[in-house]
């Protein structure tokens, strides 16, 4: 009984249980879901292929965003809904730097690393904009980021004069590596990028006080201030770090298709990123967080998406299915339901004891 309680009250329980549920469902419906093949892709390289590879590949951007979203949630007690739109901006900046004014360049106008770094700076500035609204003007995070959510994609289109630049393989073969495969390596590159991001995050959390400060500010801003912290700065920093995550996700997104579609790129990804944080058992009202649980949550969501695609659910109908998951999660984590379940458990234990005694 006690061990059961210990397991269910652990923060990793919800994402792990959801993952297990999805695995069991797929095993019953079609064990072929888990098959991984080595196939030759269009570039002539041998690469792994299969639904599991798709999940790891496509879940990368989401996992990277979940890192930043977790920090923002912890420090500000709210969420950034502009990440999808800022990904469009970041992607657009990369293409603008690489292509210059020519939408079909023969050669790249700048090294990819330069383009990426500029995009990082731009995305962090937009993060700082959101963060400043939240930290200094005390605007609700969702309302503050609604501005960029609305304006972001127009800004992205404006950066490239509303043209759609394309990086052809002739101009650069390397550019497509970030969202595809590096020749000779059968695992998609985004998986590695995500792993690197996670490792860096873990190192930062271990070797700095980022975790303690953000949680402290999220739980009690007054005490944090009286203990010498600067809550405004810490909130701002969380948004800037999310901006950096957005830039990385933006690079992967544009590299995948070597071009950009301003209105579609990373559409609705903010909702999945927020859902990942929630699925990880982190309170959306801020405070304590578990980074690994959020990242796991991101992959569980991708697992769900891929499963739904496999069962031929159309992209249009997808949100409805996800909504069911959200409803379940939100209701289950509501204090009222938790209290009720706790009472139910006590009652059951009591009646069992009674039965044993009689």
């Amino acid at each position: 009984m006690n061990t059961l309680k210990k397991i269910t009250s652990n923060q990793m329980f919800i994402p792990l249980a959801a993952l297990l549920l999805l695995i069991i469902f797929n095993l019953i419906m079609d064990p072929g879901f888990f098959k991984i093949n080595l196939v030759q892709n269009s570039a002539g390289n041998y690469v792994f292929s299969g639904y599991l590879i798709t999940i790891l590949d496509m879940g990368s951007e989401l996992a990277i965003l979940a890192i930043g979203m977790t920090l923002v949630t912890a420090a500000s007690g709210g969420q950034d809904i502009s990440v999808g739109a800022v990904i469009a901006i970041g992607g657009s900046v990369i293409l603008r730097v690489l292509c210059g004014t020519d939408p079909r360049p023969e050669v790249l106008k700048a090294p990819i690393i330069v383009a990426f770094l500029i995009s990082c700076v731009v995305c962090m500035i937009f993060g700082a904009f959101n963060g400043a609204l939240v930290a200094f003007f005390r605007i609700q995070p969702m309302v503050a980021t609604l501005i960029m959510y609305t304006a972001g994609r127009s800004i992205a289109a404006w950066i490239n004069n509303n043209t759609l630049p394309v990086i052809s393989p002739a101009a650069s073969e390397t550019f497509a590596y970030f969202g595809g495969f590096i020749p000779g390596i059968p695992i998609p590159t985004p998986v590695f990028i995500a792993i690197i991001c996670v490792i860096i995050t873990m190192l930062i959390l271990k070797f700095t006080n980022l975790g303690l400060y953000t949680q402290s500010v999220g739980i009690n801003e007054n005490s944090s201030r009286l203990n010498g912290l600067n809550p405004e700065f810490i909130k701002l920093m969380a948004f800037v770090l999310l901006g950096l995550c957005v830039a990385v996700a933006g690079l992967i997104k544009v590299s995948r298709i070597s071009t950009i579609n301003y209105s579609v790129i990373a559409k609705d990804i903010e909702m999945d990123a927020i859902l990942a944080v929630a699925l990880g058992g982190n309170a959306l009202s801020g405070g304590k967080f578990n980074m690994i649980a959020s990242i796991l949550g991101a992959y569980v969501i991708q697992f769900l998406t891929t499963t739904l695609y496999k069962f031929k659910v159309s992209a249009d109908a997808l949100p409805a299915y996800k909504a069911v998951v959200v409803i379940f999660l939100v209701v289950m984590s509501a204090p009222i339901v938790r209290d009720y379940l706790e009472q139910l458990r006590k009652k059951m234990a009591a009646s069992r004891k009674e039965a044993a005694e009689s």
Partner: protein
Amino acid sequence: MDKNSVLEMRDIQKSFPGVRALMGVDFTLKEGEIHALMGENGAGKSTLIKVLTGVYTKDDGHIFLKGSEEVNIHSPQDAQRLGISTVYQEITLCPNLSVAENMYIGRGDGSTVNWKDMNQKADKILQSLDIPTTAAAQLSSCSIAVQQMVAIARAVDMECKVLILDEPTSSLDDQEVAKLFKLMRDLKAKGVGIIFVTHFLDQVYEVCDRITVLRDGRLVGEYEIADLPRVKLVSKMLGKEMDDLSDIKGEAKEYSKDDASEKVFEAKGLQSNAGISPFDFYINKGEVNGFTGLLGSGRSECVRAIFGADKVIGGSVSKSGKPINISKPIDAMKNGIAYLPEDRKLDGIVGDLSVRDNIILALQVLKGFFKPFTKAEANKFADEYIKLLGIKTASADTPIKSLSGGNQQKCILARWLLTKPEYLILDEPTRGIDVGTKVDIQKLVLKLASEGMSITFISSETDEMLRTCSRLIVMRDRKVVGELKGDELTQNMIMSTIAGGESKE
């Protein structure tokens, strides 16, 4: 029921789980009088008000109103219908509506509103009460005092017989207070009975006719203002009879030794945005001093200004003679100042974090963002102080919010002791904690001072301050009004200095 009374409350009882908030309290309000309801925190003032306004239901007792038999008040609507209106400390009106709308909101008898009629009526009332605003003005464009008056106007128009003003003056400046008092006197002339709750003694003696004093949920007495000099009022509120009190000599003095000449911290004309008058302050090495005064007199605001917790807007501070600049808490911390805040829940603990994280927090912040303590170091600090202060917790990993009040307070104390401060400020460290822990904390304060730490100690309990402090700074109405040391440190002196005014007669 006396025919002059508009309200009589008899033998009111009210209990909450674990506390008896009101034990047989009587209260009588006469027609056309301003009646002060006085008492320290926890005396039962607000409970009595809430029983009267229907927020709480009384357990036992009787309430009579003029012109009716015994009444039962079960909800604020009941109270309003019976002509009992309340104006709270915080404005409870809608800032984005007009003055007239605020006066008539929720009072319509039907679904339609006659705007013209409403505005005309509102203007008439505003004029008759001499309130400087118009019916069409948006409420948020008026000053706080005017908003307060609009709330009163709303109450008056509802033909109230009993008007309760719950600390209406806390956020007003002197001129605004004067305007409010004029309005109160006008209403009094019209026969309204006014119950006035405030912490400001000067104001009580300026406008009130009678005083009812409560203490620890019991009625202490009801007095004509002329019969109760300030000193007596203070002694009634604190529950100390002036003459019985032999002077409690503090053990403190033996600790305030020779090297006490070095001024560890000195402030000149310090002023913050929390509404206290500029004050001078100093503390010597190894000295324990304290701020005393009634609740709301500005004790906490003073130490918050020293620590930089409120925005400092004037004055200069120096440490051991050298000028320093403190504009935010981290500056104070870097200069070896530590501050245990008055409100443990709101300003002290970081609820969801573990006992360990709560203890190391301040030292960690001082050490820097890129230099986190290892888990082993953090555990060592936490275990050391859990043992030293006898903190009762399941483990260092337990969230601090699940500890009892006293143990939470010890954790916050541990947090600051860990930073090895030269100057420690303790604002009400013993409030709401058990007696054993109180004594522990007092002993600790004296021990630390004997080791050379300078300490400022604030407590609502004068005994406690007499036992620990060797010098007391007395505050009244947000001003420093005196300093007591040596032989002057007696209950009598403290009370008469707090009371001020006529005390010297």
